């Protein structure tokens, strides 16, 4: 069999052009071969890419779209929205707007969309739910002029804020979810302001999520460094045995590990029993170690520790022990040699481990949900709450969008510094 690249000089004369046996110019043939190889490589990746695109990237794009779309008011309160478009937000609108609103509410009550509208407005300005549903119930019995009847029924209709809320939610694309996700809103004048202090939770929650993740990351470095050093320094046979102690938690179900921490740390749990038995505390002084932020940090540290130990170990494995011996023979004390020579060499591993642990910690959901109690909840738990309980999907999507932004930035940094292909498990 003759390969396509075998060369031949055509005829007896010296040809300028190198060609393949079938007479094509070599350069072109090589380019073709290169291209078909590239296409083959892409074709191999394509099935997974298509799969990931449709069942991961597109769904996330859909979620991000959810965070800005707002079709409900524009679709179901057509007349009101049209009139409010030209309203200057200076004083309560005229009779015309009230008549439009009465029509829209009656129509919305018939199509049963009024509940959704009331909920949507209530997310923006708490208290509006009953105003909308109540007015919707009464409005069919009212005739013009509407304005006095509206205001007599609920004084909110005489307030600028109510109408401003309606106007603010009229556009089909909105930023209100993102503003709400950072405890901000548009006031009557259209400026971004902080919401009432009693309702401010999300900025604090983001801060707490970051703070808890930092604590977990620090705890992982402090606990991971000594054992990674031990694993890297012991002979392979022994370090392989100890490595199992790191890998087994890695392979054990997250729910199992979380359950274990409840069993260990709860007030009637193993650790408290042990302390009472030893006599450190008496039976009345049992310590609340779990169902709070501290319990979440402890459990998450144990769960994420392998992600710190593995990159540290693989970096430490590459540091020649002769460096330390050289430093010592040059007169450095053992500790100084360790601090000035060994530790700086481990920094790539420390960086990789910290970034990975932090990225994983910041989006944690299951452990805080099960052992977090009141003050150990993180941002993911709030997203789940709005997805499943309050059904404020727009706000859930906006919170998710902000969390995603943070994670993607960190992921990009990780990829730049460490390289995603260096990620390893076991």
């Amino acid at each position, binding site marked *: 069999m003759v390969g396509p690249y075998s060369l031949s000089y055509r005829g007896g004369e010296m040809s300028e052009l190198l060609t393949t046996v079938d007479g094509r110019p070599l350069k072109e043939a090589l380019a073709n071969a290169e291209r078909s190889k590239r296409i083959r490589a892409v074709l191999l990746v394509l099935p997974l890419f298509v799969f990931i695109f449709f069942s991961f990237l597109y*769904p996330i794009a859909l979620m991000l779209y959810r965070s800005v779309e707002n079709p409900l008011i524009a679709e179901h309160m057509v007349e009101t929205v049209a009139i409010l478009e030209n309203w200057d937000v200076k004083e309560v609108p005229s009779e015309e707007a009230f008549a439009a609103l009465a029509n829209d509410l009656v129509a919305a009550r018939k199509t049963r969309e009024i509940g959704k509208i009331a909920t949507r407005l209530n997310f923006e300005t708490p208290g509006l739910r009953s105003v909308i549903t109540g007015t919707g119930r009464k409005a069919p019995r009212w005739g013009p002029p509407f304005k006095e009847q509206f205001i007599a029924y609920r004084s909110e209709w005489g307030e600028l804020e109510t109408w401003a809320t309606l106007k603010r939610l009229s556009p089909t694309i909105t930023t209100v979810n993102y503003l709400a996700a950072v405890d901000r809103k548009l006031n009557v004048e259209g400026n971004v302001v902080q919401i009432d202090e009693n309702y401010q939770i999300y900025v604090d929650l983001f801060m707490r999520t970051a703070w808890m993740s930092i604590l977990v990351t620090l705890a992982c470095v402090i606990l991971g460094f000594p*054992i990674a050093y031990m694993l890297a320094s012991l002979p392979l046979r022994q370090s*392989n045995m100890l490595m199992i102690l790191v890998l087994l938690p890695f392979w054990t179900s997250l*729910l199992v590990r979380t359950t274990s921490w*409840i069993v260990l740390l709860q007030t009637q749990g193993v650790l408290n029993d042990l302390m009472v038995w030893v006599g450190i505390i008496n039976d009345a002084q049992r310590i609340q170690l779990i169902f709070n932020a501290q319990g979440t940090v402890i459990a998450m540290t144990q769960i994420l520790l392998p992600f710190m130990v593995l990159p540290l170990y693989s970096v430490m494995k590459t540091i020649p022990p002769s460096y330390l011996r050289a430093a010592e023979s040059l007169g450095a004390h053992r500790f100084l040699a360790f601090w000035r020579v060994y530790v700086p060499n481990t920094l790539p591993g420390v960086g990789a481990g910290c970034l990975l642990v932090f990225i994983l910690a910041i989006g944690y959901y299951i452990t805080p949900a099960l052992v977090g109690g009141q003050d150990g909840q993180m941002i993911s738990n709030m997203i789940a709450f709005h997805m*499943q309980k309050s059904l404020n999907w727009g706000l859930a999507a906006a919170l998710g969008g902000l969390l995603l932004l943070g994670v993607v930035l960190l992921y990009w940094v990780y990829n730049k510094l460490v390289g995603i292909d260096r990620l390893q498990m076991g």
Partner: protein
Amino acid sequence: MSQISLPDHAGPVETVWHWTYIAICSLIFLFLIAPILVIIPLSFNAEPYFTFTSGMMSLDPEAFSMRWYEDFMNKEIWQRSIANSFFIAFFATILATVLGTLASLGLSRSEMPNKGLFMGLLISPMIVPVIITAAGIFFFYATMNDYIPLTGSYLGVIIAHAVLGTPFVVITVTATLSGFDHSLTRAGAMLGADPTTVFFKIIMPLILPGVISGALFAFVTSFDEVVVVLFVASVEQQTIPRQMWAGIRESISPTILAVATILICISICLLATVELLRRRSERLRGMSPG
């Protein structure tokens, strides 16, 4: 090599420090492993408590029982959950492994354009918080329900779990392929084998340990997954983690400890398999004397 062992000329400070270091490390290893091990004896508790009774401490046989395992075996919901978990994890693993292995073969070719970008995208399901993935898939399935009912279906859960499992397959298989000698495939082709034969006779046997490790990771990912199940599955697709989740949150019963012990045994088996595969392939590559 061994920097841990104490040299003969060590002074008292170094000796003390040496033993302190060993003690600290032992405590950290204890911190890693104790939470897993403590559950095993407690699952044999005869009393419905989550702590060691005085009977257990004195090793009284009366204090131990199999009642929570019997409870697990007799409850229909647990039986259904375990069947569902295996069913979903099995198909999610196959999907993830086939797609992930093919993609890894492409990604590890030098001709692959934009390798870093593709790799970054294909690994991202592992990095993106699972709550975001679950919310996105929830919205996606909601829009698709007019065409294929994915919410509350096995197919929907399997697809979502396969997404979460593929990064593990891609990482382990590309890692295996990075040590792969590509002249072997050329040799095969030169000796007259077509690409399919080369794949099954040469590439596959060599990368098989990596593929199996990746598949096991994908399996564990699905087997342990609860958030997506919470968001898109119905009661019919109840899995073991979902049932444990409900158990921990609502009616905590020691049956959960029995289930946890069974899951720990499964983890130990999987870890042993992966470790054996890893050591075998390292030995083949002459990297490890063990």
